[in-house]
């Protein structure tokens, strides 16, 4: 084995690692983000990738290097390799380093989790009830009920209290990077602050039966003034009644930001 081969290999590995890490930060993995706190979730993902890429490159690189460097000369090559059985020092290294890395990542993720789930002042409470196959919403502070189309004001912290009347569903807003199951007999909670106006999908992420695919709704984030108008329109004597079914075409696209 020539030293030049090793050096060449290491240079390639570093270049590939750098390239992949650059790609990690350049590529738009998730689509539009509508909640600032959840941006940390995207960052967690990117840092997980950054921590993983060197491992992947090292492993694949060593495999490739071994194939090129230590290949047998045809099937008739009956030599054996060098009979070394291990090395305690290197075994300790490759036990300790990954341990440190995963524990560090875990602590970082824990901090982010606490941030994402932290209670906010002035929350707008929304009760969510999943049923086969639609979402129903109630704004207890405002005395408004609706279904299918969820309308919320921009920049006001939202606090969802969720349950289900039949099987388990999962309330999933891809653009907020958040989801939580809803189940009969349980109340689950979700918090985020939408910071972008527009229309975004709400999907059910937990298999809930034959209509699971179509159990979709829309999240409409509007300016606070428009929200006030909307609430007023839902309260008058000719306010539309919640239908208990989806009113929106089921497979609305991901995230069209308003402006």
């Amino acid at each position: 084995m020539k030293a030049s081969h090793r050096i060449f290999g290491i240079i390639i590995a570093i270049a590939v690692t750098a390239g992949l890490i650059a790609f990690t930060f350049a590529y738009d993995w998730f689509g539009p983000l509508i909640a600032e706190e959840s941006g940390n979730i995207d960052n967690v993902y990117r840092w997980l990738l950054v921590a993983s890429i060197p491992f992947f490159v090292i492993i694949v690189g060593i495999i490739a290097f071994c194939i090129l460097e230590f290949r047998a000369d045809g099937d008739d090559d009956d030599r054996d390799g060098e009979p070394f059985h291990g090395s305690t020092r290197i075994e300790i290294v490759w036990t300790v380093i990954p341990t440190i890395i995963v524990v560090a990542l875990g602590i970082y993720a824990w901090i982010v989790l606490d941030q994402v789930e932290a209670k906010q002042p002035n929350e707008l409470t929304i009760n969510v009830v999943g049923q086969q196959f639609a979402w129903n919403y109630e704004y207890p502070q405002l005395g408004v009920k609706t279904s299918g189309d969820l309308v919320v004001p921009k920049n006001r912290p939202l606090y969802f209290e969720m349950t289900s009347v039949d099987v388990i569903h999962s309330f999933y807003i891809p653009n907020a990077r958040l989801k939580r199951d809803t189940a009969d007999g349980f109340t689950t909670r979700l918090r985020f602050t939408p910071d972008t106006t527009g229309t975004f999908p709400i999907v059910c992420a937990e298999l809930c039966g034959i209509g699971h695919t179509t159990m979709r709704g829309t999240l409409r984030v509007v300016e606070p003034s428009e929200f006030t108008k909307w609430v007023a329109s839902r309260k008058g004597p000719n306010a539309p009644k919640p239908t208990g079914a989806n009113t929106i075409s089921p497979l609305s696209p991901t995230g069209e930001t308003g402006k």
Partner: protein
Amino acid sequence: MAASLRSPGWYRAALWTAIGFVFAFALVVGIRAAADFGVVVQWDSIITVALVTMPIFFLYGIGCFDTWLYWISGRPTKPDDHSDHGAHSWKDYFKVNTDHKVIGIQYIVTTFFFFMIGGLFAMIFRAELLQPGMQFIDAQTFNGLFSAHAALMIFVFMVPVFAGIANYVLPLMLGAPDMAFPRLNALSFWFLPCAGIMFLASFLAPGGAFATGWTAYAPLSDQAPLGQTFFSMGVQFAGASSIATAINFLVTIITMRAPGMTFWRMPLLGWANFATSLLVVLATPFIAGSQFMILFDRALGMNFFDAAQGGDTVMYQHVFWFYSHPAVYIMVLPGFGIISEIISANARKPVFGYRMMAFSLLAIVVLGFAVWAHHMFVAPMQNWIRIPMMFTTMLIAVPTGVKIFSWLGTMWRGVIHLRTPMIWALGFMTMFVLGGISGVMLAVVPFDIAVSDTYFVVAHFHYVLFGGSLFTIFAGIYHWFPKMTGRMYNETLGKWHFWTTFIAFNATFAPQHLVGLEGMPRRVADYAEQFAAWNMFISISSFVLGASMLIFIYNMVYSWRSGPIAPANPWNAHTLEWQVSSPPPIFNFDDVPTVVGHPYEYGVPGARHGIFKEPEPVVAAVAGDSSTTSTDEGEPAPA
């Protein structure tokens, strides 16, 4: 005809399966009539009972219980002339046979049959997903297909195929004449077709096949039509099969190793199956429990999961995942063992850090029981549980990483033969690393909240189970094919098989990470327009992936019939199974082997693993010391 109805075999099996149905019918109708239940012929109950009686009566008919029943009834059992040992023609594979080598092949062929059907189901629903909108199957069929796909792949392919490979190889490797309980071994095998056929038969049930995924979350599975009962019952049979096999492996590994084979001289496949069997014995009863609860709810009207009655749906998930997370290791640890064997034999090197390889298996077993709730980060579970589960899950990466690095260490400065099994082993390492990386990511709670139940998860577990486990299965089958059949497989076809599978596999599953990150949920028959391009690409790739399996099937069938005759030890490996003829003699070893050294002493001058004569006592006493154990020379058994 009358005689053939009395002796074990397919005629008697058919007769008794029918009797099983009549029995169930009479039992239910009788009880309902006696208890005045109104409707007397209640088909749901009849079929539920028939799902228990028919398989058991079938097992009697085919002959699984004959010797035991003779013994219980006090009649003289047939003097054991071993007419049921070994196979002389292909027909012998369709009979109850107690030879572990026959059972091993029965296992592998049966599980691959279900694998092909499960793969076919995947291609049907991928065809539906080729374009947005609903094309040619309805939502119920779609849900049934992906549920049956998973049930077949997990319960009657991935878990038992490893039991099949180990069934064939392990007693040979340990120097034992057979498994500890050959009849129980046969019974374990015959449970499998019962389970698999039950999964498939659910498509004939009124209301369609079980359609709640392989997870069968309550309370959805409580309310589902009759097909769900087929799933719960099939899982019981598959579970009984794996528990019985695991007990068999543990007893065999602990009590039947050849003289001189201490635990630290045991090949790593033995260690891997030891660890796996521990997991099976401890964890599988939990999925039995979870499905019993579903069955009791469905058949006896119990209320385990009805919140109004005090039930708890999240409890189902705890019980279910307490098995189903360890199940992931049940489906991959034996593969780790296979890879260790193949890499050391094809790199002509001792396994790097042999003891750490064994300890890391045990570490995975222990940690594997402390991570189940990582599947429930978005479930209505107490929030605090998520943090310890996140850390334990991430820590499993450490012993797993130790294994990967040790395999690299094994290859370093070896003499690498890139034969088909080795190529699959290397493919496994790269793909499994990717699956492991996405696994660590999913363990991270905030990220999991974003992507759980999306295609990212689908991509992750296919990288683990397809790119991981299935690649090791192919590696193992190619590696031991000469031993099992006495013929060589075709190298060129084996390499074609690898490259088509490898490329199509990545084309199918890598993009699923991307659509998952963008928010496409799993288990949906239809999707938003934005995912259309990738889904078409994924579907087309999956068809290529399916087609690549035909190369494998052709290679296996063709080579088994007319491949070149295999020598006893084509890979020049040291473990005991290669020291006997291909295929091995009926009781494996004409002379009991004696183990005098480590199994992987490639490159150590004069080192031997097993010899076929008494060792000099001094040598046998020095356990753990490898490089000096050269005795001269019992010859290996002739080919």
